[in-house]
């Protein structure tokens, strides 16, 4: 039989009873009432409280660490430093990760951990931190990535050599990699252009802004078996990386996930967990570490800040003929920005033949960046879509028509080598043109912006299992995380397959010992991939039930069909048998062949790319530069919305996060390289009153590789936001900003500068 990867069984005409409806998600009520258990909520007998001593310097040699006074403080049960971690070679993935969670030779950013304490109470742990004596040799630091690229800049890692540049073998540098990608002939393309626009842009690091700070409890027992409870987007990846940096067998560590108080990519990497493990191992007591908001801002991953130069050209009848880009990404103190996503995705949605990109990844004295929805893409699309709009304006073409004229369709081969299957960019653009928002005139004094975006969506290693209980209800075990409603969507697909009410199906998190490996929950892969393995598991369970029914009736399995939750004779010729319900079959397991379950382990492929369009109206206060977003519509292809409200939530959340990134969010460093705004008060994420209700349009162009046709929807919603807002500001004030965030002081300066120029003319 063909595997589900070869034949998903997708049937566009199948009548759906559960998929496509909006049931209350099972985990919702506990989250609303505060009963849900998050990372910080586990309490174990004898548990200690861990606190982390962090570097006050952005760059320094760690000369010595004296913990003796802290160890002598009553109530302190363990103190750990670099000496308690295996020394792994610098510049390797494990070596970098180990040095990021606990500084070894040097500290590389304000807040870099240098020691940790476990004590009987948090106040005692805090007092102990003050008793640890650290001798630093402070070094010159560099925060800005362009400065970090210059000759003579302070070098972070003596071993670092630029990958992708010939002759770079001998020179220590902060440039991790140069990546060149090209297709076609851009010189020939630009030669055909009637209009060429080339501009420079910059963006600032932005924090994922999850409301729940990282929290964990680690417990190392007398047999050195380790249990870790934490908030994570990837239990298996945490386990394997923890095992790597602690030099343990993975089977020694069991990672259990809590509910997720927001991740957005930021919980794909760990911070306090390895320290809690080593403290627990030393103290032989469970240790809890919960980061403060200050620690979250200073030390956990923001997204990359960027500099970019982008050039695009089109003919006067609206064909984009060439595109070029040079991109710089700051990755923080260690590599890992996923900057390659940007050249792969920045132009992808237009059927371009001639593209040339050069991208650089650069280290500097800031926390190591981490993933955020569509890592490294929105901040570059900010420039691309500004230019697309400008080109359309210059040739006098409606900007959605211009995008339609250039839209990629099935069969287009991308810069990164993939050839598109069925995709819905054209349908998304057409749906955008039909929205009430786009058809309504812009209100006086306001501006309107439009932008489009793309994300690959991902698949990858995924496992799951599904058990039919003797009473005919259903348990699902998932090895992925539920960052945004995947449990309910996956349960709905299982209920649809099995023909049982959703209430009969419960989805659970498996710990790492209970299920095979799963890739992190990231890249908009989880509802797609875990949905695939659970549908596969359900189908395997159905096959078993069909066999059991055949045995009960004394017929062959081919003579039994399964529909609406019952085994039935395939035809009247088979015999006159009363249909057997799932419960009828499952309740007999002890007299037949044992429990009925299905499990599935696969490297899931066949993900369908996603496309979205954002339309924004806003006002700019001429006296203060403040922006008031008045109307916002997200139009995006979901393939098939399993739970439309959850899909809308993704669209709205992406837009809101983009509004913050576009308008106000930025890291402000003091001259001494320390972070000046590590709090929600001064790191200005939007509050509820800063955004209007975000309207959504769900376009459904099914992905036939999935049994229910779905595409991931987690990343696309943030990709066009920055550009759409920038374009709207440009429309409102006549100058399109090129620097993020488009904060009130910067906009006021732009407008005043424009007045000054106008007066001079």
């Amino acid at each position: 039989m063909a595997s589900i990867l070869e034949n998903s069984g997708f049937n566009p005409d199948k009548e759906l009873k559960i998929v496509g409806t909006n049931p209350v998600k099972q985990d919702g009520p506990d989250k609303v009432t505060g009963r849900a258990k998050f990372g910080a909520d586990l309490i174990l007998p004898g548990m200690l409280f861990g606190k982390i001593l962090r570097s006050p310097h952005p760059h320094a040699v760690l000369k010595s660490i004296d913990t003796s006074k802290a160890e002598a403080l009553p109530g302190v049960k363990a103190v750990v430093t670099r000496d308690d971690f295996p020394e792994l070679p610098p510049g390797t993935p494990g070596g970098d990760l180990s040095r990021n969670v606990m500084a070894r030779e040097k500290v590389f950013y304000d807040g870099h951990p240098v020691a940790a304490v476990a004590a009987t109470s948090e106040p005692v742990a805090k007092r102990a931190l003050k008793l640890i004596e650290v001798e630093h040799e402070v070094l010159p630091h560099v925060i800005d990535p362009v400065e970090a690229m210059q000759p003579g800049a302070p070098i972070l890692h003596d071993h670092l050599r630029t990958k992708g540049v010939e002759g770079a073998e001998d020179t220590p540098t902060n440039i991790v990699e140069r990546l060149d990608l090209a297709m076609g002939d851009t010189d020939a393309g630009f030669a055909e252009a009637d209009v060429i626009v080339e501009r420079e842009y910059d963006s600032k690091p932005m924090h994922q802004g999850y409301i729940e700070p990282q929290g964990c409890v680690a417990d190392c027992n007398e047999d050195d078996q380790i249990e870790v409870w934490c908030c994570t987007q990837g239990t298996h990846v945490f386990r394997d990386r923890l095992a790597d940096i602690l030099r343990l067998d993975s089977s020694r560590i069991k990672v259990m996930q809590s509910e997720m108080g927001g991740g957005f990519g930021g919980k794909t990497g760990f911070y306090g967990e390895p320290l809690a493990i080593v403290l627990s191992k030393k103290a032989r007591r469970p240790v809890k570490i919960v980061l403060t908001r200050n620690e979250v801002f200073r030390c956990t991953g923001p997204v990359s800040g960027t500099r970019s130069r982008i050039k695009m050209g089109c003919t006067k009848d609206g064909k984009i003929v060439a595109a070029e880009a040079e991109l710089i990404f700051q990755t923080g103190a260690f590599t890992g920005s996923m900057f390659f996503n940007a050249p792969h995705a920045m132009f992808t949605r237009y059927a371009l033949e001639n593209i040339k990109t050069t991208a650089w990844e650069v280290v500097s004295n800031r926390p190591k960046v981490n993933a955020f929805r569509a890592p490294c893409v929105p901040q570059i699309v900010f420039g691309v879509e500004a230019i697309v709009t400008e080109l359309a304006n210059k040739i006098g073409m409606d900007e959605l028509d211009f995008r339609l004229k250039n839209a990629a369709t099935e069969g287009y081969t991308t810069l990164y080598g993939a050839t598109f299957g069925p995709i819905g960019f054209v349908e998304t653009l057409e749906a955008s043109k039909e929205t009430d928002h786009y058809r309504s005139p812009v209100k006086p004094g306001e501006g309107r912006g439009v932008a489009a975006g793309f994300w690959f969506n991902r698949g990858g290693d995924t496992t799951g299992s599904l058990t039919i209980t003797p009473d005919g209800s259903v348990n699902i075990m998932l090895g992925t995380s539920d960052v945004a409603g995947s449990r309910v969507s996956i349960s709905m697909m299982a209920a649809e397959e099995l023909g049982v009410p959703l209430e009969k199906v419960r989805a659970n998190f498996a710990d790492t010992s209970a299920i095979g490996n799963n890739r992190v929950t990231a890249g908009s892969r989880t509802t797609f991939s875990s949905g695939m393995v659970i549908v596969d598991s359900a189908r395997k369970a159905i096959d078993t039930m069909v066999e059991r029914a055949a045995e009960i009736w004394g017929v062959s399995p081919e003579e039994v069909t399964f529909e609406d939750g019952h085994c039935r004779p395939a035809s009247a010729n088979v015999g006159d048998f009363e249909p057997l319900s799932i419960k009828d079959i499952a309740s007999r397991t002890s007299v037949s062949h044992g429990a009925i379950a299905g499990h599935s382990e696969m490297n899931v492929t066949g993900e369908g790319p996603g496309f979205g369009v954002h339309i924004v109206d806003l006002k700019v206060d001429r006296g203060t530069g403040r922006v008031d977003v008045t109307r916002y519509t997200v139009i995006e292809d979901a393939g098939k919305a399993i739970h439309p409200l959850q899909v809308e939530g993704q669209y709205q959340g992406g837009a809101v996060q983009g509004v913050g990134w576009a308008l106000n969010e930025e890291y402000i460093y003091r001259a001494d390289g320390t972070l000046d705004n590590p709090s929600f008060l001064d790191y200005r994420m939007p509050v509820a009153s800063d955004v209007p209700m975000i309207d959504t349009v769900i376009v459904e162009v099914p992905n036939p590789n999935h049994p229910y046709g779905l595409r991931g929807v987690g990343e696309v919603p943030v990709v066009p936001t920055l550009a759409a807002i920038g374009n709207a500001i440009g429309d409102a004030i006549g100058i399109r900003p090129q620097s993020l965030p488009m904060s009130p002081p910067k906009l006021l300066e732009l407008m005043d500068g424009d007045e000054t120029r106008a007066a001079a003319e």
Partner: protein
Amino acid sequence: MTELNYAAPDSLDAAVGMLADAGAGARILAGGTDVLVLLHGDLIEPELIVDIKNIPELTEISVEDGAWRIGAAASGMKLMDHEDFAAAWPGVIEGVALIGSVQVKGRASVGGNLCNASPAADSVPPLIAAGAMANIAGPGGKRDLPVEDVITGPGQTALEAGEMVVSFTFPKRPPHSGDCYLRLTPRTEMDIAVVGAAVNLTLDDGGTCTAARVSLGAVAPTPLLVEDAAAALIGTSVDDAALDALAAAASAACDPIDDKRGTIAYRIKTAGVMTRRAAETALDRARRN
């Protein structure tokens, strides 16, 4: 290891006595929206917390012959829900309404907002513009201080050891008076003022401004009483020329810093814009009563 003690006296004398005895190790707890944040952030390590909410006169709101007195520890929501006070001093209520979320305002007080001594405190410029007096009790007895003289620098007040603000008294309002407070922040709420501007003015029956007070927050080490800005209005019909002069005087009075909340140039420029807008609303209110 220091111990943290908590006391909740029910009389002013008892509170003043405790504060005087404990000296620099004591902190007053009214709503706690600053003190508890500082405590949890390890920014202060007090030995004694004196909770003053059980002292009756600290939370009372009363009026005598048109002159209001509000307890220093009365919560922001209590003031906002007090219809008569809110109608009398809408600008003060605008300042109070901007102190954090509804939950925070359910605890936070004007006395605490003043004594925290932030240059950006939202209730302080409208109190200054109103001409409010801080009624102070201490080991040496009682005294009154104009609100503009209470804050002496960021985090610094003119209160002596053992002294506390008990209440605020407001002058009786003449007819045709109006006040307004406007704040500039990048976000709509839950933010700290980049500029705060309060204007309180009185018109005669002919519409000429006979009295005005203008106060600015977040543009200098302390909230400012800007007499030049007030002078730009007095004797005028508060026309465009007067408002231009007001805005220019407000900008000229600024002595801000560049920080994470705003640049010097931005603050100076927008101080004029916000003061002008506040004056326009205050004028509208004055004309309607």
